[in-house]
């Protein structure tokens, strides 16, 4: 009789203690894997349906990329409540590492993902170790400053980053170089990255680290009383989040084959977008960022295609408004609202 049967046992016998009431079901990592597999299947079908339409594929690739990046941000930003505006830096580190290794030593981007991830995590830990003592807005201000310093350094150190001119990666088609003429392979890689980040986020959320991160987010004193080394937990969450963000940066660099400071370190296009998507989807929930990306990215490019030409800035005007409205009225985002409705429905029914 394995574990799951116990839960289904009649009330009397369940629970490890004698006379314990039945334990409510706790979503496990295994159940999440099932859901992620279903999501993966759904996207695979979408890819198959639109395999010959590059415009949709390009949109999907970009949506999956930002869903994955927002999911990665959510690990420390949502679960751990550390409002970071500096993830654009880890994104840039991933992009520059891969671009450099590919440009100067023809290292396959698949291999350079690993150094990119490691470097991003090291920088993340090195930078957030001193600033994690700070709370809420102070941490956000420090990460905003970090992004600005990174921009200046990326522009200044010409030999490493190609400076303001940036790096134009040569077009050498081939799987090894992660360079393709058609959009389909890129979309497949991006959906792969999305699934990986969802699996990692699920593993974190449905495990000790996830509960510890949430405890740290809600009340650091309570967390310490429960034996949690708050600093270590925050750093671990940040390292994982930065590593994934670094992968995203590397894939973005190969997708665009061009890396320069304004493109990878732009606050409004990259840094803020991660949390905008997470908020609108549902901060702190596992699938919130995915939902947010599925809504925001297509909406944004639709607005740009239709309104962008007519009134300059109208698309960002609408996104800014959305951010304020969601912060006021839908704090738990769309996913949170759906979850709330589902619980009320289930609560009313049982």
């Amino acid at each position: 009789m394995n574990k799951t049967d116990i839960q289904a046992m009649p009330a009397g016998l369940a629970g490890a203690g004698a006379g314990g009431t039945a334990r409510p079901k706790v979503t496990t990592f295994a159940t999440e894997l099932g859901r992620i597999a279903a999501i993966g299947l759904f996207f695979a079908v979408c890819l198959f349906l639109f395999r010959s339409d590059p415009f949709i594929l390009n949109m999907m690739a970009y949506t999956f990329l930002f869903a994955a990046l927002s999911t990665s941000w959510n690990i420390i930003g949502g679960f751990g409540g550390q409002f970071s505006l500096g993830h654009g830096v880890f994104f840039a580190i991933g992009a520059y590492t891969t671009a450099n290794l590919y440009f100067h030593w023809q290292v396959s981007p698949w291999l350079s993902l690993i150094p990119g991830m490691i470097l991003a995590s090291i920088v993340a830990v090195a930078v957030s170790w001193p600033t994690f003592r700070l709370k809420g807005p102070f941490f956000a201000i420090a990460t905003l400053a970090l992004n600005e310093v990174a921009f200046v350094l990326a522009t200044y150190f010409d030999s490493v980053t190609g400076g303001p001119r940036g790096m134009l990666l040569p077009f050498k088609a081939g799987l090894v170089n992660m360079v393709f003429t058609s959009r389909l392979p890129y979309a497949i890689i991006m959906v792969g990255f999305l699934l990986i980040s969802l699996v990692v986020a699920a593993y974190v959320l449905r495990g000790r680290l996830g509960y510890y991160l949430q405890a740290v987010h809600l009340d650091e004193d309570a967390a310490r009383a429960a034996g949690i080394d708050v600093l270590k937990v925050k750093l671990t969450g940040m390292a994982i989040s930065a590593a994934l963000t670094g992968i995203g940066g590397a894939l973005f660099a190969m997708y665009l084959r061009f890396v320069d400071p304004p493109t990878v370190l732009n606050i409004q296009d990259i840094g803020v977008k991660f949390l905008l998507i997470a908020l609108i989807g549902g901060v702190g929930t596992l699938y919130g960022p995915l939902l947010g990306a599925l809504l925001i990215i297509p909406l944004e490019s639709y607005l740009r295609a239709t309104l962008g030409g007519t009134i300059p800035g109208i698309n960002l005007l609408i996104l800014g408004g959305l951010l304020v409205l969601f912060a006021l009225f839908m704090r738990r985002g769309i996913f949170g609202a759906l979850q709330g409705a589902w619980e009320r429905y289930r609560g009313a029914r049982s």
Partner: protein
Amino acid sequence: MSGFVLSVENLTRRFGGLVAVNDVSFNLRKGDLLSIIGPNGAGKTTMFNLVTGQYPPSAGRVIFNGADISGLRPHARAKLGLGRTFQISKTLTTLTTLENAMVGAFLKRNNLSEAADYAMHVLDMVGLGARAGIKAGTLTLSERRRLEIARALALDCSVLLLDEVMAGLNQKEVESVIDLVRKLNGEGLTIMVIEHNLKVVRAFQSRVIVLDFGRLIADGSPDHVLSDPHVVEAYLGRQHA
């Protein structure tokens, strides 16, 4: 040192000129139920926070299961088995009651369902089993107190420190918590309680120490201590002829 779970040796803590805890020493054997009483500002909470590691002592030592933990930070002490509750209960409101307990259970268990099972067991022990599935934010005040105790128990703590766990509860709730504490102590758990409600201390019928102006002025059974002139004086002020 033989057989003491927790011993406090010449513990002192100064805040600038003020000596909040002044050279306090006492020992706790396994299975003891010790109540710490004293008028407001006697240094009870400061002494409690010195044991839990909120701030380091100015002098003296805290020995736990034979090891000197004076320098350890709060989370390290919790890991060693020192569970504590907060006077203003710190409940993780958006998590469910079960998940709150699981945060404690995860200390010794890495597997999700094991932690959940043990958390359920602990919730049953404190009588919150039926409320496991709801969001902790909706619990009543006394239920939140019980949840704090459950979270500490989930750490498999060998010593439980209760900080005014009765504060703000009505009479019926106080009695049910007293039964809970006595039940847990009966099962071998060493408990140290800060309390200023003398009825509760009498109900515990267990050892009492009294602090006044940071000094330990009495240590013994409730009847003996409560009739001690110093204690009466500390509480009611000097009796003028």
